[in-house]
């Protein structure tokens, strides 16, 4: 969780994306979660990040009541989209900050060491980010693998299917579902990264086991 470094453009973009379909950081009322994130931002987000700007202006209007908003302030890494890496380190946010002025700049207080640590983490985050997208699109797929007849060795069939390995493919649980005439189909779950594995590739590799597999279908496909 977390937004990355909220003082950087990249972090603000993650925040903007997150807020596109939400009015608040958590839930449907303003809370300490919003205050925590608000205080981590240097100032109003640029106009092109209009969701973040909308949220910023709205939270700013609660400035006077910020102490009485519900909830408990947590570390920034606990908020935000579930699959963004939490790169907030001790350097940026472990302040008990009801006393700190909402608009006060905290640069004076940051020591040299903390600053260096932050730069390092920022560089790390940026490099990681450039290697893979901040949000990895994943899907959970339920496959139906059908044998030729009721004499097919289903255990062997399952073994063959599970032997298929690929980057971005993780096999999950499976069960045998009777379809009639004594024939059972194998229903097996897998989680794939959309960029790396597609159902075509899975179908190709599964049906390659011609001795056991008659056909394969996608029973269910859900984005995670």
């Amino acid at each position, binding site marked *: 969780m977390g937004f990355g470094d909220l003082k950087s453009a990249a972090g603000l973009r993650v925040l903007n994306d997150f807020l596109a*379909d939400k009015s608040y950081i958590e839930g*449907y009322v303003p809370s300490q979660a919003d205050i925590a994130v608000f205080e981590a931002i240097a100032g109003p987000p640029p106009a092109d990040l209009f*969701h973040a700007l909308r*949220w910023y202006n*709205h939270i700013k209007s609660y400035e006077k009541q910020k102490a009485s908003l519900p909830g408990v302030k947590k570390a920034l890494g606990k908020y935000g989209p579930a699959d963004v890496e939490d790169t907030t380190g001790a350097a940026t946010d472990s302040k008990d900050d009801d006393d700190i002025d909402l608009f006060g700049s905290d640069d004076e207080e940051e020591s040299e060491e903390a600053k260096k640590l932050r730069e390092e983490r920022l560089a790390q985050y940026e490099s990681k980010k450039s290697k893979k997208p901040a949000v990895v699109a994943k899907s959970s797929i339920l496959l139906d693998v059908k044998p030729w007849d009721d004499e097919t060795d289903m255990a062997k069939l399952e073994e063959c299917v599970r032997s298929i390995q690929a980057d971005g493919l993780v096999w999950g649980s499976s069960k045998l579902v009777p379809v009639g005439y004594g024939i059972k189909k194998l229903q097996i779950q897998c989680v794939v990264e959309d960029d790396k594995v597609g159902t075509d590739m899975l179908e190709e590799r599964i049906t390659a086991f011609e001795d056991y597999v008659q056909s394969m279908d996608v029973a269910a496909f859900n984005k995670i």
Partner: protein
Amino acid sequence: GAEELQLLERLLGLPGGNKYGVQGERKVPVLQSNSGPGLTGLMTIAAHLVRQARREQLLGSTAEEKAVVQQWLEYRVTRVNGGSSKEDTRTVLKDLNIYLEDKVYLAGNTFTLADILMYYGLHHIMVDLTVQEKEKYLNVSRWFNHIQHYPGVRQHLSNVVFIKNRLYTNAH
């Protein structure tokens, strides 16, 4: 019309017992009164109920806010009606989506009667939108999802589902 006003009464915590009728072809709601002709019109009756419940803040606090609330009440009554065509509906959603881009509530930063009546008025439209349409009118969806979670608003109306992970768009 009348049903909506009853939902509003409950939301406002009013004891109920008001009698409503409808008038004319356009089914304009009427609040019947024992001592006189009664009140006519959705906007009028709604505002009256709000004052009865002593929740005037729902009509806006500053002069500007009050005007904006009135604007949306008028919009609701003239543009968001049961008999709108598909095209009218699309225009309404488009207008709203642009308007809500930088606002959390219709009146900006506070919850008002405008949000309530627009929510009730739009419910039957939002219920029928496809996933793709909900994403297309992203700001309306965000606002609608927010309002339907506001305590006391939704009551027995169905919860419109907005999925968490956007499927179609990466650019905004």
